[in-house]
């Protein structure tokens, strides 16, 4: 909410500075978002007179002015075309800051401009921040006194303050309310709002039938004013105030309703009386009714929205927007002013459903003062007759008498308990009275009845906030505490620890951590989602971010493409993050996906360059699995990971029936879709699956057992079938003698068009003795024979 200092001063008398005012506003919960105090920021600028003006000797478009600042005559180079002799203007001396506080601010320095020394600058309105755009330097009235500080001539309406109003404080969505709250906090004294009851000159013939009196519209008042003139402009005072407050000047009648909304937080509506047919009815809408608003938009209404209607049509969507069919224009002669109170929830629901944002809705849905309907109509009447003239009709109403106010009961020590500092009963009472509560204190129990303009005060905690706010949070000293016997002592859970370890491990393996959107899009999902339904967002920010991701790959590949476009070709990245399998909360899973794209080894003087391949990624994967203490469990690798992997160059790691991870080369079609030209490999690890088998390390560890007997190595080279999984052969050999065969390792794999051979090293070692040559040879024979029987592997 934006207003000028002049406006606030209409209701609040105070001697403090603007800075102190802003500090106070913020400290009572009305955060000052901007304070444009030109009087302070232009305090060094001086009213000056150009006493002589001569063309610059070295520049066509510049002049050299002799400027009198009340003490000295200064030489100032000026390029403004309106500069002339005897003109009074504003001088920025050396050291003055032009456009203070803005991004374009700069300090005036003594400088030579094309060979002539200039001792300051003559300013334009724009440079003084008095207007956004201006031509030439500012020309002051002749009555301004040369040598005086220019800030003296800055009007209160040029000092602008913008405060943020929290949703609970609609009472401060009006300048008067802000003044009221300031004075309650002890800042300045409030000037009463003068409300004059205007005598009616005729009896209105219009009848109101308020069908919602008992629920959604307890107060509904109308007043006719005839023979008004809406063709003029509002007064200059109002226009200045509107300019400083960021309000648009439209027509006197509209300006008046806007003025009262901002001034007194009292939304009103003015109808063109001549466009209204018959009597007025307030009712709920029925499904499918149509309404054309003042914003020229057509709305189709739901059930239960509050409507103001005449006998033929809907004339207003209550509390939100008037109808186009009864709006005022410059020809409007007779008017009907509406002042009402509508149920906040109804207004909020209607506004939300139709997506209409208006000043009236803003105020009504937050709960304005229900007792302000009469004040509103009188204020409007006075302004209308002052600005537009007219004959005043009687106030007509169809309302209920009293709107109930609630009473909040609270123990007087509750305030000290919640705030954590001692506040006396009397102190509490005093502060509550200051904000307008009527307070009854008996037997340490406070009964407070909040004022009608504070609809937000509902429970005792609300009163605590009021007392704390007025006391000032800065006056509550911090107090150390310890949680009493808290049950859990672990900061991070086992899975959280493991995730932190994975991050460190992968970064140490030179894989960059990235964070990408949880969002995906239909294109990616159609390409990469093989199992789940696509989870779509009802109101996405863009088509690119319209779904929830079912895997991390899309985001990672997109990042690879983006980096490739910047000529970064070797990209190794990973993400640990959620993927989504259904709409329900908790149905999300956590994945780790690592992608390596480009060269594993760049052209280099030490080694031959080569692309990343699936054995790089497998090495990454195994190192991650190494963190999970599942080495002793029997995992198996199955070729072909499916999905977005190359069918011939991929694999999955299983533990029992659970797939822990998949790895391999990216399917060429997917690479193509993402415009990735470099060779790309990836693995994805399903964290929930892995963690299911992983238990925290047992401490202390089992005793380390090593053999002290000599070991022997035998190498075997087999011709094998092209599609044999080497791991099957290795596992088989190992199983032939679990006592003696302690390690089996593939150390070469050779393939040509029709054959393949595998070289395997077998380490033999016993725990109980040194093996004899005979024993070793016997075992070697067994390996060769059994490999042949089982896998048709022939020793080369």
């Amino acid at each position, binding site marked *: 909410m934006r207003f000028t200092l002049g406006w606030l001063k209409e209701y609040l008398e105070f001697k403090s500075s603007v800075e102190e005012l802003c500090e106070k506003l913020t400290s009572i919960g009305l955060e000052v978002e901007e304070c444009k105090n030109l009087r302070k920021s232009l305090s060094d600028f001086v009213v000056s007179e150009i006493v002589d003006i001569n063309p610059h000797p070295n520049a066509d478009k510049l002049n050299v002015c002799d400027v009198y600042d009340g003490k000295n005559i200064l030489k100032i180079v000026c390029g403004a075309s309106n500069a002339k002799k005897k003109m009074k203007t504003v001088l920025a001396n050396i050291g003055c800051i032009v456009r203070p506080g803005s991004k374009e601010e700069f300090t005036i320095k003594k400088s030579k401009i094309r060979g002539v020394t200039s001792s300051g600058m003559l300013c334009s309105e724009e440079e003084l921040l008095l207007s956004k755009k201006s031509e030439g330097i500012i020309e002051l009235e002749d009555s301004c006194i040369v040598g005086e500080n220019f800030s003296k001539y800055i009007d209160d309406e040029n000092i602008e303050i913008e405060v943020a109003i929290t949703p609970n404080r609609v009472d401060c969505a009006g300048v008067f309310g802000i003044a009221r709250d300031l004075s309650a906090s002890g800042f300045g004294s409030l000037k009463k709002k003068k409300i004059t009851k205007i005598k009616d000159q005729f009896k209105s013939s219009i009848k109101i039938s308020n069908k919602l009196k008992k629920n959604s519209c307890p107060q509904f008042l109308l007043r006719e004013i005839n023979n008004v003139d809406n063709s003029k402009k509002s007064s200059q005072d109002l226009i200045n105030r509107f300019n400083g407050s960021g309000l648009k000047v439209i027509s006197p009648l509209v300006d008046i309703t806007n003025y009262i909304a901002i001034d007194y937080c009292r939304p009103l509506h003015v109808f063109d009386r001549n466009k209204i047919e018959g009597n007025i009815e307030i009712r709920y809408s029925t499904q499918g009714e149509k309404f054309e608003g003042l914003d020229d938009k057509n709305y189709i209404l739901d059930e239960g929205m509050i409507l103001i209607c005449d006998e033929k049509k809907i004339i207003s969507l209550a509390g939100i927007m008037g109808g186009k069919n009864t709006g005022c224009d410059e020809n409007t002669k007779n008017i009907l002013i509406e002042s009402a109170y509508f149920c906040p929830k109804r207004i909020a629901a209607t506004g939300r459903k139709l997506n209409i944002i208006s000043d009236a809705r803003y105020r009504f849905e937050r709960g304005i003062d229900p007792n302000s309907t009469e004040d509103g109509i009188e204020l409007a009447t006075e302004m209308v007759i002052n600005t537009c003239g007219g004959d005043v009709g009687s106030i007509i109403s169809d309302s209920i008498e009293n709107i109930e106010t609630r009473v909040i009961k609270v123990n007087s020590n509750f305030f000290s308990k919640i705030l954590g500092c001692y506040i006396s009963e009397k102190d509490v009472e005093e502060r509550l009275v200051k904000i307008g509560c009527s307070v009854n204190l008996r037997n340490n129990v406070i009964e407070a009845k909040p004022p009608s303009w504070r609809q937000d005060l509902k429970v005792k905690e609300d009163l*605590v906030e009021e007392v704390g706010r007025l006391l000032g949070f800065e006056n509550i000293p911090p*107090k150390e505490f310890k949680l009493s016997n808290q049950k859990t002592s672990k*900061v991070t859970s086992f899975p959280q620890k493991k995730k932190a370890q994975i991050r460190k491990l992968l970064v140490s393996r030179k894989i*960059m*951590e*990235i964070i990408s*959107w*949880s969002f995906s899009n239909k294109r990616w999902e159609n390409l990469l989602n093989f199992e789940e339904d696509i989870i779509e967002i009802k109101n*996405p920010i863009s088509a690119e971010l319209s779904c929830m991701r079912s895997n991390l790959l899309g985001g990672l590949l997109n990042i690879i493409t983006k980096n490739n476009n910047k000529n970064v070709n070797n990209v190794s990245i990973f993400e640990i993050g959620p993927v989504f399998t259904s709409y329900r909360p*908790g149905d999300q899973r956590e994945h780790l996906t690592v992608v390596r794209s480009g060269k594993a080894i760049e052209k280099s003087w030490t080694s031959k360059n080569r692309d990343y391949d699936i054995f790089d990624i497998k090495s990454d994967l195994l190192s991650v699995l190494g963190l999970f203490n599942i080495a002793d469990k029997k995992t198996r690798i199955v070729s072909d990971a499916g999905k977005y992997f190359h069918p011939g160059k991929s694999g999955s790691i299983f533990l029992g029936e659970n797939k822990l991870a998949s790895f391999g080369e990216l399917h060429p079609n997917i690479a193509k879709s993402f415009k990735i030209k470099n060779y790309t490999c990836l693995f994805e690890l399903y964290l929930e699956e892995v963690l299911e088998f992983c238990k925290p390390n047992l401490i202390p560890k089992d005793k380390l057992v090593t053999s002290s007997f000599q070991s022997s190595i035998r190498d075997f080279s087999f011709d094998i079938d092209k599609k044999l999984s080497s791991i099957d052969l290795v596992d088989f050999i190992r199983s032939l003698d679990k006592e003696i065969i302690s390690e089996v390792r593939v150390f070469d794999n050779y393939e040509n068009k029709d054959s393949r051979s595998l070289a395997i090293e077998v380490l033999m070692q016993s725990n109980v003795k040194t093996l004899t040559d005979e024993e070793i040879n016997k075992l070697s024979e067994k390996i060769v024979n059994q490999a042949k029987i089982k896998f048709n592997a022939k020793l080369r």
Partner: protein
Amino acid sequence: MHNDQLIQSALNEVEECSSVECLEAKRVKFFGKNGLITKELKSLSKLPLEQKKELGEKLNKFKNQFFLIVENKKSIIESKEINLKLARDFLDSSLPARENNYFEAKIHPINQTINEIVSILGSMGLTFEEGPDIEDDFHNFSALNIPEDHPARQMHDTFYLKSTKTDSYVLRTHTSPVQIRALKKMQIPLGIFAPGRTYRCDSDITHTPMFHQVEGLVVDKDINFANLKWFVEKFCKIFFNKKDLKLRFRPSYFPFTEPSAEVDINYSYSSGKIILGKGSKWMEILGCGMVHPEVFKMSGVDSSVTGFAFGMGIERLSMLKYGMPDLRDFFEGDLKWLEHYGFSFFEETDLSWR
């Protein structure tokens, strides 16, 4: 006599050697299996005792002398050879290290910031909790005292999911729903924090549709606003590593806390950079307050307890501490940005604050 000649020629020949190979050849020639002197030594047994003793002594003495000379000679030749080799050998040590010619990998600044928060809030007695990214209306709004049609809902720019059912599911707009989940699940006293992804339907210079928050919640018999002030102040001072950081608590509004406050920290500009903890300008850093009784009620918690909660934007904390100029870069995945603003996995958090 014959033996003296043999000894002399052995000495001469060894003297003339200039390579290790030559020395080895001479050793074989004279003292090998069939060496000339070996032969003499073998034939000693045929000699009479007197002669055997005399000649034996002489030859054995020479044997020792010979091997000593050979060893000396050998080490001289070897060191000469080493020096020669050293003079010849040269490697340009300024050549690039092996396969190390591209990016260092880094931890993403968001996760680094979360790590720091885990260390700090963990050291202050809180435990790490998590909640789902997709939430139901109850946890994201109603239980947090934000009923339908509450104006505060409009401020949340909520993403809704297209669901076939009538239930409305949302992407959580804040980490506060974890408060409800923790209150329902855990015993009091409790102290938790919950960092995580949050979502709002907003995208411009200062907003991304996805961002991160961290929520804190402390509930016990007698937790009060003064405790909240102490806790938040301690956290901020440790996190920003500024012992003289000033905090300003100003009244604000959140439906799920009462009283509510926003917290500002002081800063100043110095040559275009933000200096925290110095100067008199204020910037907002977090929101907090005493847990609203409605929140306890909705979570089924006895109303005799009190508690405080706070929430912060992690990107903002990160930008203020580490100086990234633009929020949007966090999720762009630009490797150069990540290398520059990311963190080594060795980083540790300093927990001192006074």
